């Protein structure tokens, strides 16, 4: 069942330097229990897309200027456009039905409250209950995310915990109201690899147990390959390729996706003298996007046509979104 359907989502930032087209006509859907990976480099619009879904785009300078976010709010009724909800109604969705985990576990926790208080706040706000009930729930959530001696730990302040533990607290907080969708924005980027492995295992386990959908925003293709069912590749505010995880990794059709995959250090050591594959050039200025395909300046296969015409979603009819005129030949 389609839980979330995003249509033509467009978020712009109105800055002194001009209109930054951070998210430009992004459409995708999310099924119940599905994991969707959103990948791209810094400044490609992936975090802005996640913030737009929560209606948390900083305003000013940001504004969602177009699109619909259709969410299955009740199991019986039809989908509701989150962008049309009143602020008060949106607050009931945020945290309760769609929850978010941010990259920086240090700055997203309040240093002057215990972690128990902070997790309890979300439960109190959305579900209510007596102090004792909330407390029990908090301890249960902490144990659930693998924090040892959770009764004692609930009284700790954020600075008493390690980075990995803080990220577990963030996850416990996000999951405390059993949301339908968890948005995780680079949840493991600030962590060491061994801790990253723990957190990814935890997310996978909790997702299976709670049957929730996961939107994972990351720049790490390795993380996506392990976690996602479907993948969206973003470049300069637009989706350039969309497909199942197998399609993206085994049959990438967009030159940008192909470049990203080639740029990952290979599994075995390169022979001496060989060099890493790269994508020359840099991401274009989102306030001054060139005409036509935004990747044209860095594309090894660029043709004159790419710089003249806007590229539609699937110009070559490959059966999924590949924003390239030559997707069938790549």
């Amino acid at each position, binding site marked *: 069942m389609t839980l979330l359907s995003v249509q033509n989502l467009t978020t712009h930032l109105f800055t002194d330097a001009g209109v930054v087209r951070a998210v430009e006509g992004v459409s995708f859907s999310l099924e119940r229990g599905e994991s969707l990976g959103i990948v791209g480099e810094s400044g490609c619009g992936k975090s802005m897309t996640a913030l737009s879904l929560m209606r948390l785009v900083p305003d000013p300078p940001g504004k969602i200027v177009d699109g619909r976010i259709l969410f299955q709010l009740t199991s019986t009724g039809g989908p509701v456009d989150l962008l049309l909800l009143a602020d008060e109604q949106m607050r009931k969705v945020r945290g309760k039905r769609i929850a978010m985990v941010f990259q920086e576990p240090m700055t997203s926790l309040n240093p002057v409250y215990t972690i128990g208080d902070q997790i309890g706040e979300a439960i109190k706000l959305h579900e209510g209950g007596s102090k004792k009930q909330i407390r029990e729930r908090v301890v249960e959530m902490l144990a659930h995310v693998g924090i040892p001696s959770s009764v004692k730990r609930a009284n700790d302040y954020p600075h008493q915990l390690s980075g990995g533990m803080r990220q577990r607290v963030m996850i416990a907080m996000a999951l405390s109201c059993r949301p339908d969708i968890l948005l995780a924005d680079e949840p493991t980027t600030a962590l060491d690899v061994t801790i990253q492995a723990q957190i990814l295992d935890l997310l996978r386990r909790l997702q299976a147990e709670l049957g929730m959908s996961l939107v994972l925003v990351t720049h790490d293709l390795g993380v996506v390959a392990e976690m996602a069912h479907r993948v969206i590749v973003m470049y300069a505010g637009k989706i350039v390729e969309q497909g199942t995880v197998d399609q993206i990794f*085994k049959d990438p059709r967009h030159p940008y996706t192909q470049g990203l995959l080639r740029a990952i250090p290979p599994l075995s050591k390169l022979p001496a003298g060989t060099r*890493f594959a790269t994508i020359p050039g840099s991401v274009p200025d989102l306030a001054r996007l060139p005409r036509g395909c935004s990747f044209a300046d860095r594309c090894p296969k660029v043709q004159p046509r790419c710089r003249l015409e806007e590229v539609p979603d699937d110009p070559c009819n490959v059966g999924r979104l590949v924003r390239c005129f030559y997707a069938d030949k790549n």
Partner: protein
Amino acid sequence: MNEILVDINDLHKRFPIHGGLLGREVAAVHAVRGVSLTIGRGETLGLVGESGCGKSTLAMLLLRLIEPDEGSISFDGIDITKMSQRKLRPLRRRMQVVFQDPYGSLNPRMTVGEILGEPLLVHRVVRRSERRDRVMELLKLVGLAEDSYGKYPHEFSGGQRQRIGIARAIALTPALIVADEPVSALDISIRGEILNLLCDLRERFSLAYLFIAHDLKVVEHISHRIAVMYLGRIMELFHAEGLAGARHPYTQALASAVPLPDPTVRRQRIVLSGDVPSQLAPPSGCPFHPRCPYAQEICRSVEPPLVEYQSNFCAACHFIGEMSQRTVSHVAPALHGAC
């Protein structure tokens, strides 16, 4: 490559923590505990470990930016452990550093020309009239346009800024560059370019690198030898070609924790439980024993020495002889051929 450029012997560094009313030493972080390493001329030594393992402290000790408590450091055959800063100065030309953060390590009020010209001026390597030419030459070497000369750091992207940092490091034609997480802050498409640049410069100037990173994969490709650090100690030291054969349980866990960009490989991962223990209260015996899946009684009490268990492989583990090669082998996917 056999000639030794850097020789570190049994180096220790403690950071005392003062507290209480009288500001007495109440505890100490033993950041580097008895590390011995060598770096050959033109060799790249990769140094890997999780945050807080002491890898950056070791780099700062080597550069004499902080003072060691015990042990010795020699550079190019000269003992620099106790050398005065004044005497050290001519040697500083020959050891340079590239930092992780290309935003924080460049002065925002100086133009690129000034940033790159300053070391030349301070060390009086070129005449004033020749300085501009030398800076231009450096810009070309690291792949920056000539008009970068008059620009300020904020006008560059992260990758370009790292190029400026590298140009500054090679300005004095050093023999050793300490690169502390030089690509960790960069996007993957840029990362390759910077690594390639470091490789090119290494060949051109026969540079030695101490390449510090937390990403074992990146280190594997650029290094000749790899040292794995944990809680201030070297756990394993081996030739980079042999990563798949490295047997220390910690190295294996680190290697298996890297997510593979291939959805069909469902690797059995060695997930370490728990966090890195606090440096304030390091575990007795082998520092890794609380997280080690193979820990025995002896590991809790006796600290294993670093011994060669096979040619080109040294490890600090009581049971290294019983560890099999990587329990789960990497299945080489056809990914890179497919693109």
